[in-house]
């Protein structure tokens, strides 16, 4: 079963992203959540999801560090990582490339874009 991990320290963003991806859940995709970097890394290692929506600004371990740690692990290299960044706070593309992120989205995110991205990565048609 395909898995998507949603990582954000703000509960309402997690809830909204889950709600956004509900249609995929109905088609058998498991939606996992994590509320900080450490938890995210642990979940990634245990569950090995196909796709991670990863918030950049988080206390303790930020999204860039999580991303780098995932990329350093040979078994997790294939995981598609989309960074989430707040609108107005310019996404550091260079940093994103450095740590090996596959792309980024700004919050408030566009729900359609999120679903399209997930379908694309999971190879699901509309």
């Amino acid at each position, binding site marked *: 079963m395909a898995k998507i991990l949603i990582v954000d320290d703000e509960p*309402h963003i997690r*809830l*909204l992203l*889950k*709600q*956004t991806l509900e249609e995929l859940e109905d088609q058998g995709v498991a939606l996992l959540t994590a509320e900080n970097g450490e938890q995210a890394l642990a979940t990634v290692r245990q569950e090995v999801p196909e796709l991670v929506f990863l918030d950049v600004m988080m206390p303790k371990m930020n999204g860039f560090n999580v991303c780098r740690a995932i990329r350093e692990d040979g078994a997790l290299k294939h995981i598609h990582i989309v960074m989430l960044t707040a609108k107005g706070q310019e996404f550091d593309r260079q940093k994103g490339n450095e740590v090996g992120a596959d792309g980024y989205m700004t919050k*408030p*995110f*566009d*729900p*359609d874009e999120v679903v399209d991205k997930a379908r694309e990565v999971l190879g699901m048609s509309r």
Partner: protein
Amino acid sequence: MKLQKILTQQNVLSMVNGVITAMGGPIAVHSCDGVCLLGQNGNGAAQKYPIELSGNVIGWVTGTAEAMPVAALINHLVVREYERKMLARETLDRYKEISLIYKFVDKIALCLNLAEVTKLVIEETRKNIKSTSASVMLLNQRTRNLEIISASGKEYSPKTTLKPGVGIGIAGTVFFSGKAEIVNNVSLDPRYVKGANRASSLMCAPLKTRDKVIGVINVSSEEPADYTAANLQLLHMLTSQAALVIENAVFHENKLKEERIKSNLERYVAPQIVKAIMDSKENIVFTPIKKNITVLFSDIRNFTTTCEQQPPEKIVGYLNEYFTHMVDVIFTYGGTLNKFVGDMIVAFFGAPAMAEQNEKRAIEAAIGMQKRIKTIPAQWIQNNFHTGIGINSGEVVVGNIGSPHHMDYTAIGDEVNTGSRLQSMAKGGQILVSRSVYEATKELFAFTEIGSVQVKGKNKSVEVFEVQY
């Protein structure tokens, strides 16, 4: 909402499991179709408690009497989960709207071209609202008609112009009321005006700016679409953003048009008249109309012979300097430069603007011209340019006349010819006027009566007066 989905959540599962274990007795949770989801299916369970959500049974808790508080707990969890879900759904809908508006505004905000911006608005609207065609209609200030500026749809061709008078049709009603409308069965609405696109259902929303409605956006569907209040609300949000951008584009376009007219006008009339024309609320007409104006003709006597003494490029230089001074005087008295014909100058007073005391201003200009020649720095001009001026007034046809490739703002009529004839009779330094000019200004200037002359092609003779200055 399915009971399975709630019970598979990790925290819910462990909590309910814990409670069942603590209760001790054989307790089981079933889905409404009888699948055991949790606990032991104790045989001959004495009690059966429903799990309900908004009046529907979605599962059962069976077992001993202890099953009751378990059912109560699950019921509570289900309701909470349901509420949370609804809230999340509602928030997500709002979130979608915000994200849509963001994108919409980002796309159209910087566009100043009216055709382009309305096209974008239609594209974006149709992307978000199910429809087979859409159009932007704006009020044409001149004709007071609502005109399609941009449209999309199966049968649309850019030439289509649907022009219901304001107040006619659904679009007209919405334009006047300023309130968006849904018409889900168009054929039953007597206001409907057939357009190029067939429509069964439509929505129409006003394009409102701060203080007025400038047009409407129509969205329609060939198949019955059952547009909802939520659809209308979305259209309303899009139009309120679009209205400001469209107004801006219209403003920009008018400004450009004005600039073009202005730069054209400035070649013929004084800047202050251009300003008066641009500022005036009334429409200045350039299409030919009958109008009472005064025409002034001025010509250099014996120009050809005079010119023989000088090389042509020198003559051109002198002419340019002479014309510049003459036009300056004409403009000073509110005249309009009509044209130069060789060394002749034709000027109007009273068209296209400034219609008061045309005769007086024309004579003042003529005197000014005669005097100005004597002060032009080039001595050669002072010595050799002697001009005769003729002035006549009366009704002529004035406006843009010509072929589509070349139009001139000019005047046509007998009175024009008479003016020209007076000029040809005037000797160097003389200003000759007709009776109509004399009558209008006899209290203001001194005249000498010359008498009547026969004008070529006219039965009546013309009375000629010379202005003393």
